[in-house]
């Protein structure tokens, strides 16, 4: 299974190696396609590959770290 996600980092997380830790902690692989990381904030578009349950655990862990996880391409829910 693959999930295409945008991770958004606030100033408190932007300097932490959270993606690296995620890959060590969970059985997922990531492929970074685009990113803009600046000293005070940033985002990263990546593809996560792995078992569905493992990806879900990785996403939940990222959110616990304060990283915003949303679909690539913006919100799907519309007005």
């Amino acid at each position, binding site marked *: 299974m693959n999930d295409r996600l945008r991770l958004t980092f606030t100033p408190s997380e932007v300097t932490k190696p959270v993606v690296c830790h995620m890959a060590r902690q969970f059985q997922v692989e990531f492929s970074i396609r*685009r990113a803009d990381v600046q000293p005070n904030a940033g985002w990263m578009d990546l593809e996560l590959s792995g078992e569905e349950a493992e990806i879900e655990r990785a996403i939940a862990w990222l959110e616990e770290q304060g990283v915003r996880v949303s679909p690539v391409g913006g919100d799907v829910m*519309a007005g």
Partner: protein
Amino acid sequence: MLCSEVLSKRGFWRQRGRNGKYFYGGACQPPLGRKEHALTSSAILETSATASNGHHAVKHSSRLLGLKCKECGAKYEIAPKHVCELCFGPLEVAYDYEAIAAQTSREKIARGPYSMWRYQDFLPVEGTPQVNLEAGFTPLLKCDNLAKRLGIRDLYIKNDTANPTWSFKDRVVSTALSRAKEFGFTTAACASTGNLANSVAAHAARAGMDCYVFIPADLEAGKVMNSLVYNPHVVAVEGNYDQVNRLCAEVADRVNRNAEGIHENHWAFVNVNLRPFYSEGSKTLAYEVAEQLGWKAPDHVVIPIASGSMLTKIYKGFNEWMDLGLIDRKVVKISGAQADGCSPVAQAFREKQEFVAPVRPNTIAKSLAIGNPADGIYAKDIAEKTGGSIDSVSDEEIIEGIKLLAECEGVFTETAGGVTIANLKKMAESGRIKPDEVTVAYITGIGLKTQEALTGHVGEPMLIRPNLASFEAAWGRKI
């Protein structure tokens, strides 16, 4: 085209990795002159997908060149897909404007139907539109009363409450589902809190398509009813804002893959896999205004921002007509309006940020409550380059905006329209709208759908007994 060809044409470098696969790196082309968002050369892109990736491309007319990534410029066949396989940037429809110029004219447009389809030469639908409730060609109202209140002279509202399901969404949905029919889809789908769901359900019913609408489980009953009446499958999703969004994105992706993971056309998720086509429908908001003003562009437009798509397409629409000589060239100031409770684009504009940081929405303007706007950065760039602005207003100001438009011009708009009018007022008061500018404010949905927002904010009826004395007592005068 293979990904290696695309990459080499875009100037990417290539090297063979330890596992024998090729890796690509390099920079993407920045849109609109903004700062580079791509990775530096120290980062690596691993690509595994072909450009078309198994999609069923259909034969297309000479007007349509294909799809093009707004970030890296990669090109694809016309197909139901919305993000670039290489950089995940958004795709949009690319046109052959010489072919369009050869077949269109003011006279031809003026002879067309009194709907958005009079502009079909500029839309990504090949034959007769198959999903059509006659959306568009809504009134452009000169608003002298409101203009006087705001201290400006030439003010118009584009009254898109007059559409078949009472919002501008009918334009984009009619475009998306007409294209979906051409792709061979038989099921329409969307995730929405209101207007989009209503429009997809109605158009699907008219087109005889099966329909799935995903809504948040806590959506008000009245809004659900406006979709249920058309008899779609309505799926109420429990969970927080981000969870609901991710689930809907996953559904849109998985439902269109077979057991081998290859894309197949099953569900037309209008604002996901059909997004490049869907969004083009908003260009008709520019064409109509220009035609209704006597084949000229206004000086300044004020547009509500949710995903930011509508703003970018109105800008594109004016510029397409200028490029083709259908209207005189000028810079139209493009300004955006958001609510304080969901203002990621306004915040990026104010702080001159290079990206739009997502927020969790909390505003009465539910139809603008998009916390992670797909086209937010492009909307911000357009406001900057045209001399417009993007601002936000409080929920109290939104209610006052709804009442101001209703009291001055007899138009009852939803909360999104209140956002537009309140921002218009703020801009006029601060001098960002010049008194002599021909200004158009886009009113995109009807107030009947968001009546709860006005509870306690409008007057009460006079309750009387059925006799004259009671009426005179309540009125305070003798007849």
